[in-house]
């Protein structure tokens, strides 16, 4: 591979992977904060307001990190992928500013109000601010997904003689079926991150024996949201997304499953290592005919393997794609198991005393991040070798004027910068956790102020 192409791909991959650690939590927490604020209004209990305020602070830290790592994303379309923006700007140029104009203004304006304006608003007004933040963050997610969905499944465009794509139908772009499945799948994934984080925080406080009342609320809201979202993640959203790939990118499906040979009654590989040289799977454990059923709802259906497609159209990195996909699916299954057990204990009223389960909830907090990241790796590696599926190859999209060495310089710069940001982030979150959801007595605050 051309080294400039490799550097530009790594540049985007690194910055977007780091970036998405933050929005997945804010998008996941936003509806949960609305739930807490609603409980506060309904039950007229200050506990829920304190809980909402605590999570709003965590949200705020994540939001700032999301913004400062998000601006580079919007810039990189032009800086590192200028040929892509030149050709596709007429279409993806619609959804990118739509995010800024509709979602980002809403979210940033009302987050400021939500965080610093509680005293200036009525309880009802503050609730509306939470709703506006929720709407803003979810709209923002939609426009980004719609952009990606167009790259995965280009619709509603015409191609002009100079090779550039122009929008032919706005609603066609917004109603791209791929976008809606991907959005649903992505957002329930974000709620999983939010729910696991909230449950883990509650579990941590319960295990430490601090902030018991708030901690129980956290665990309860986290587990209820967690079981709903982890089930939605598999069905219908994961299934729908899979159908999209099966119909629009069959070669990607074959690579995700490492199905080298076309066959009727294709098996689903649970565990095994793809061997691209020998074109088979080492040490496989499979469910026979399952892949055929999941894809076509028939046990003996013919599934196209990689051999049905020319090798230059295969995703280049089949092992990484395969592992990303299997890690995502495996973790998704484990999330359901964890949340079912936790919900059962919650229903029986035993969860808060089941220390082993609280430990499980606490220790599971990194895994939704890994699953979401692996899911995006699957989507993006699976799209290769195309930048716009079937229309523009990745090696046609990057900035020719930006040399590999300049790209490497800024990539290293971002790595250094983001390491510092990551450390600061952990440090600040730790402080909030230390501080906890309960207000400090006014006398103490005045002393530190």
């Amino acid at each position: 591979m051309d080294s400039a192409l490799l550097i530009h791909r790594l540049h985007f991959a690194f910055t977007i992977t780091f970036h998405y650690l933050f929005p997945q939590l804010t998008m996941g927490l936003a509806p949960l904060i609305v739930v807490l604020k609603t409980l506060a209004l309904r039950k007229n209990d200050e506990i829920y307001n304190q809980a909402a305020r605590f999570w709003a602070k965590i949200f705020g830290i994540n939001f700032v990190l999301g913004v400062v790592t998000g601006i580079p994303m919007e810039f990189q379309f032009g800086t590192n992928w200028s040929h892509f923006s030149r050709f596709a700007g007429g279409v993806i140029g619609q959804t990118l500013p739509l995010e800024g104009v509709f979602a980002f203004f809403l979210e940033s304006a009302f987050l400021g109000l939500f965080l610093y304006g509680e005293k200036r608003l009525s309880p009802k007004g503050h609730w509306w601010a939470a709703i506006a933040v929720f709407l803003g963050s979810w709209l923002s997610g939609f426009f980004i997904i719609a952009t990606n969905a167009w790259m995965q499944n280009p619709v509603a465009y015409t191609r002009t003689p100079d090779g550039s794509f122009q929008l032919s139908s706005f609603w066609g772009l917004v109603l791209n079926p791929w976008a809606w499945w991907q959005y649903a799948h992505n957002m329930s994934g974000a709620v999983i991150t939010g729910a696991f984080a909230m449950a883990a925080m509650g579990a941590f406080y319960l295990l430490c024996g601090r902030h018991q009342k708030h901690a129980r609320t956290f665990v309860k809201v986290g587990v209820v949201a967690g079981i709903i979202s982890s089930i939605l993640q598999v069905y219908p959203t994961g299934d729908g997304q899979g159908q999209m790939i099966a119909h629009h990118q069959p070669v990607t499906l074959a690579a995700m499953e490492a199905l080298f040979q076309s066959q009727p009654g294709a098996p689903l590989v649970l565990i095994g290592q793809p061997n691209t040289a020998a074109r088979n799977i080492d040490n496989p454990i499979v469910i026979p005919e399952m892949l055929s059923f999941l894809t076509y709802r028939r046990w003996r259906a013919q599934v196209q393997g990689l051999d049905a497609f020319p090798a230059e159209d295969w995703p280049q990195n089949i092992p990484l794609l395969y592992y990303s996909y299997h890690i995502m699916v495996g973790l998704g299954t484990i999330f359901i198991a964890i949340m079912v057990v936790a919900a059962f204990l919650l229903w029986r009223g035993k969860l808060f005393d089941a220390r082993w389960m609280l430990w499980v909830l606490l220790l599971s907090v990194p895994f939704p991040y890994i699953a979401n990241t692996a899911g995006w790796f699957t989507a993006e590696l699976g799209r290769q070798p195309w930048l716009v599926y079937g229309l523009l190859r990745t090696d046609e999209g990057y900035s020719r004027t930006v040399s590999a060495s300049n790209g490497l310089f800024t990539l290293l710069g971002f790595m250094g910068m983001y390491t510092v940001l990551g450390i600061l982030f952990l440090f600040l979150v730790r402080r909030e956790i230390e501080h906890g959801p309960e207000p400090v007595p006014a006398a103490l605050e005045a002393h530190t102020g």
Partner: protein
Amino acid sequence: METLWFILVALMLTAYVVLDGFDIGVGIIYLLLGKTNRERRLVLRTIGPVWDGNEVWLLAAGGTLCFAFPLLYASSFSGFYLPLMMVLWLLILRAVGIEFRTHIDNGVWQSFFDGVFFLSSVLLAVFFGAALGNVIRGVPLAPDGYFFEPLWTNWKIGPHPGILDWYTIGAGVVALAALGVHGGLYVATKTEGPLNARARGIATLLLPMLVLLTCASLAATLSVRPQVLDNYKARPISFLIPIFVFGCLGAMFWAARKGKDKLAFAGSSLYLAGMLVGAAFGLYPNVMPAATDPAYSLTIYNTAAGRHGLIVGLAWWSVGMILALGYFVFIYRKFRGKVRLEAADEGY
């Protein structure tokens, strides 16, 4: 249609400069402004709830540029690769400086983040000014519409200019002074007592410098790119723009003397807008003049997206902007008035 989008993108960039300009300006004079920890917290609180909303204008303007003029977006962003990446790092550092300072009650920690906030604001102002300078001066465009500019070459203007030369650095200094004044006048409107007086004092001190710099930048621009006068000569009424700019400077002087802070801040906002409108008017219909062969210049016509997309965009853009303006008016009203520190307050 292309002209309309040229105006709309210019409007969004102007909104960005006027809005984010004041919080960058606050950073520029931050160390002079706040002498004690208490004062610095107050200063930060004046921009705390609004700065990231202001920054969204940059994001929205960048996205709209990509939408309306894809080739311009592609060419300029890849051509200004290095300085843009540095702008991104500076934006990150500045956000860190603002948001992370108050989280620990330790003098050294706070001084460190004060320094980060100050330095990144200063450099951002210079970079943004230099960016505008580059656009006016022209860049070494190739026939395919792309270019790549090194950070500097020989500091002179010629067919192979760098990002930084005497003219663009000059533009950076003008931006530094203009935003410094802008920030000072903003803080004056939001504070009371000694802080209010000091903010106004710094702005009044910088004002004469700004007047001189404005005159110098005008003269320099005319020598670097005399073509900017063409549009003015074609429509003499447009000479009202520079007159308006100087009128704003005069109004700022007068209002700052009289202690009419809001009026002075309004004057400074209009001054910034006037400068940008003046530059945009001089460039039109060019959006990126070529320093090589004028035939390679990027104009609104050879960079615009397809007609259908531009028409559709007009619909959602208008709705979105009305909503965004609504939010901004609402938020600024909610946070109107002077800032104070209260014992049990959250944040900053």
